[in-house]
């Protein structure tokens, strides 16, 4: 806990993502587990059927890199998504999850808003926003990330608001009714190392959100179109601390004790680097860069040792 005291709460929260993700890699019994759930809605026409199917499959592939363990991930196709199946799934989640476990929920499909309620379009009766809130609230307390890639999803921001829940929506209101392209770029970012802004191979929801916003903006600019969607995130800081996927050597990997120790060393150094960056304006430029260089070289050496560990003994 020395590190935490030294770094302060704010920085700790930013670094928590690394720490938690690193710790969970070790798979010790005391660690929180990751769960994820992808619900695919009806496309209504061939193009959207195929798009949503592909999006859900790609999401599943990326989320699998979190190595959550058997029985902690579910992808419902558009054929499988109906209220009964969704309710059963949440019942199973409620049975399995412990307090502190993390959940990622993705809605892939069309949404609608009639001025009163949001509906996620599935086979049979639609899933309403209100019903979704009840289902999420029924789970043991712990961090939740809900990403709705649907039209009109902005209305969920208020409906699903909760201290422990990060809500990301493709639109800012229920009135943005065109099918958004947000989901395309979110999924593309999961496979693009450029989305991992700090290159720590732990892709946070915040990094991916920023990447997606940038791509969506360029999509509309490139076609000289007025953007018909404006994404929102309920808790930007929380999103930065929520790991959605792992990349590179950290993907689908369990760690040895040696690797875990190196990861913690890496975290300690990252904290020192952040402290230096925060003091940048107080230092002469050359001194700043000299100190930064020294820390970066140290971090690089730890990273090399970690890579060697992961590349040899740890990778399963």
């Amino acid at each position, binding site marked *: 806990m020395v590190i935490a005291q030294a770094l302060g709460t704010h920085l700790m929260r930013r670094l928590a993502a690394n720490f938690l993700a690193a710790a969970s890699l070790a798979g010790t019994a005391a660690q929180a587990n990751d769960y994820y759930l992808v619900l695919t809605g009806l496309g209504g026409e061939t193009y959207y059927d195929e798009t949503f199917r592909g999006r859900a499959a790609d999401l599943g592939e990326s989320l699998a890199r979190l190595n959550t363990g058997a029985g902690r991930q579910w992808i419902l196709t558009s054929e499988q998504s109906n209220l009964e199946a969704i309710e059963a799934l949440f019942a199973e989640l409620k049975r399995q999850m412990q307090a502190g476990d993390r959940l990622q929920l993705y809605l892939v499909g069309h949404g609608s808003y009639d001025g009163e309620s949001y509906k996620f379009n599935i086979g049979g009766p639609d899933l309403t926003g209100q019903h979704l809130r009840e289902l999420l609230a029924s789970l043991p307390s712990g961090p939740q990330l809900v990403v709705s890639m649907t039209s009109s999803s902005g209305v969920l921001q208020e409906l699903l608001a909760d201290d422990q829940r990060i809500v990301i929506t493709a639109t800012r209101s229920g009135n943005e009714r065109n099918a958004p392209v947000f989901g395309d770029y979110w999924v593309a970012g999961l496979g693009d190392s450029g989305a991992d802004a700090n290159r720590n191979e732990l892709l946070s929801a915040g990094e991916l959100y920023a990447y997606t916003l940038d791509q969506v903006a360029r999509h509309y600019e490139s*076609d000289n179109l007025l953007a018909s969607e404006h994404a929102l995130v309920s808790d930007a800081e929380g999103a930065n601390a929520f790991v959605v996927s792992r990349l590179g050597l950290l993907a689908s990997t369990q760690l040895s004790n040696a690797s875990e120790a190196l990861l913690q060393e890496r975290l300690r150094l990252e904290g020192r680097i952040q402290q230096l960056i925060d003091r940048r304006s107080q230092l002469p430029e050359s001194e700043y860069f000299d100190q930064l260089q020294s820390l970066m070289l140290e971090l690089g050496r730890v990273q090399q040792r970690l890579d060697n560990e992961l590349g040899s003994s740890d990778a399963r």
Partner: protein
Amino acid sequence: MRARQLLHPALLAVASCLASQDTAAYTVDYSGERDARLQPCDQMLWSGQDSAARECFSNLVFATTEAALQAEASWALGDVRRANTLFATAVTQQPDHPGIKTRWGYLYLETFQDQDAIELFGEALQIDADYQPARVGVAAAITSQFRGEVQDEIYDILEDNTDNIRALLILAKLMLEKRDVDGARPYLDEALELAGDRYPPTEIQAMYAAADYLEGQVVSPWIERALTYNPSYGDLFVNLAYFAELTFQYRQAVAFLERGVEVDPRNWVARSALGINLTRINRINEAKPHLEASYAGDPFNIETVNMLRLMDTFGDYLLLEDRIEYEAGGGTRFAEVQLRLRRDEVPFLENYTLNLLRRAIPIYAQRYEFIPEEPIIIEIYPNHDDFAVRTVGTPGVGLLGVAFGYMFAMDSPTGRASGDFHWGTVLWHELAHVFTLEASSNRTSRWFSEGLSVFEEWHSGPIGSVKIPPYVFQAIKDNRLLPVADLDSGFIRPTYENQIMVSYMQAGLVCSYIAERWGDAALAAMLRAYRSQLPTDEVIETVLDIRPATFDRDFDTWLTSRFATLLTNFDRWMSLQQSIGSAAGEGNWPAVLDLTQASLDIYRADTEPRSAWAARIYALQQTSDEAGEYEALQGYFAEDGYAPDLLTRLAELHQQRGDVAAAQQVREALRYVAPHQQELHRDLAQAYLDLGQARAALEEWQILLAMDPHDKASVYLGLARAHLQLNEREAARRQVLQALEIAPFFREAQQLLFQLTQTDNS
């Protein structure tokens, strides 16, 4: 009858506060139907006795309950909103009176609402199909829309009614627009005789002054005569400025309009036009007070409103100044340039614009024997409507660039969908205007200036090959090209769809023909001939020593020979395009491949979005024939196709095959089509590094960094590598640390830092 409004509701609130109490130079009623009670007031107004006229018209408003009379008096008093309401009442009182509807139409015409005016004239003609003032009104409205068919309509009207002064004035104006001064004068003579003492001569005198001006007489005796009749007749100078603008004489237009404002400070049209023309000669700070004054006096003028709104956005732009060194006229010269670019577009436009200027200026200076004496000002607008307002006053024009002499404005590549146009070519085209307009003291004919710009696009520009849309060949086949002496009318008063573009292409071809037969020197000599104010037919005869009719015949022979294969097979080629479209629609890719090959055998230079090239490449992609696709893309690029998606694919295929240099050549071409795409700069920078061109790589990474990319860490790493290649080790160290500051775990950056520090320590 439906309600009519003179203004957009959003503006009415402002307008109601600003209702003018001034008498206005409103449209003279030459119909002979003018109410006798208005005539004494008219006489005062026409002769510039403003106070007396105001009192006269005011008395009339209170002395009568006849809405039509009150409407006319209110209009003359400048209260057009009240006049509008009163005309509506008058029409209710006398629904079968074509004259009231016609005058109401003229009120709309004067307040810049041509379409509503045409509807009212149409309603008048429904009452009386032969009602001449309404027919003339329609013609006047069409004239203001620059539609070529108006001339026939006017001739019809004249046949029916040879004493219609308004019709004679419109016809004279049409003649003068074509610079046919001799053709215009008889109409003016006739109009003046008809006016006698009954109507004011001023409008006719203004047209005489314009005729003199077009013949080089700036200080016409008609100006003095008009001002003697009405010392505050500002419209005289508005009319002169119109013809100055039409002949690219923007400084002269400003001078005329300054006179107009001087004699009639409350002439809001003059003040608006003065403001707009001042912006065209880059006297922007002086323009705004005139525009604001004009708006205060006449909030109906949408051009004033638009320009003021645009000027409010100028704070978002940067004015960048540079100096370009070049060789011309046997010595080293310097051209001052100013770029007005929106701040966020500076990173990807500034350098490329300057690169084009460095290439083009020496070419133009030498070919046109002209050294710029003032700064060249280039404005690039990301919002197309802003560009349109800047150049023609209202949004919705189909232009890409407009030159006003030393200053030109154009669309930014971000102003349209990606790849919609080749902005480098547009810049090249407009810059040519700077030289050709200024070399001729802005006296060149429209067709020649446009023709030279197109000629430069084809022969020296960033594309550098002849690009002609298929419908132009159709026009050639149908013998719809104009004689060279009349080519201006194809730009000013087009009579069929696409004629303006056909005229552009014809003008470019004519200039190509002249350069080929008589040499580049003839082009410069023609500009000099225009500068001495010769008309086109005399320019042709004097400089080329050939009669215009013979020139036309020889040009036709050259043209037919130049495009012999296509013109001979044109019907088959057109039929092939249709068949390609059908086969592609059916997904019959083998047929598409056969048909596109047949089409390309006839004509390969068509690289439009729906060309045989595009269809062929698509078919090859659909059939997964990558080798064929690669070959077709190379063919397309060799013909200077520039669709960004196709060129990006070609660069990718070159790169995959290890031909980095060829890939880079394609990407370099893309800079002048879609420079706002971040991937382009990343790819260019990386490839420059691979090719050992570190300085160029550095430039591209810097552009990309300024574009605020999401992944800045990799850009800093790229900068570090470029610096390292240049052996600038300290700069490389700083850049790599910048990369690591953002992305501490960035392995490639860590490795480079190790490399830099190990070497430094060893």
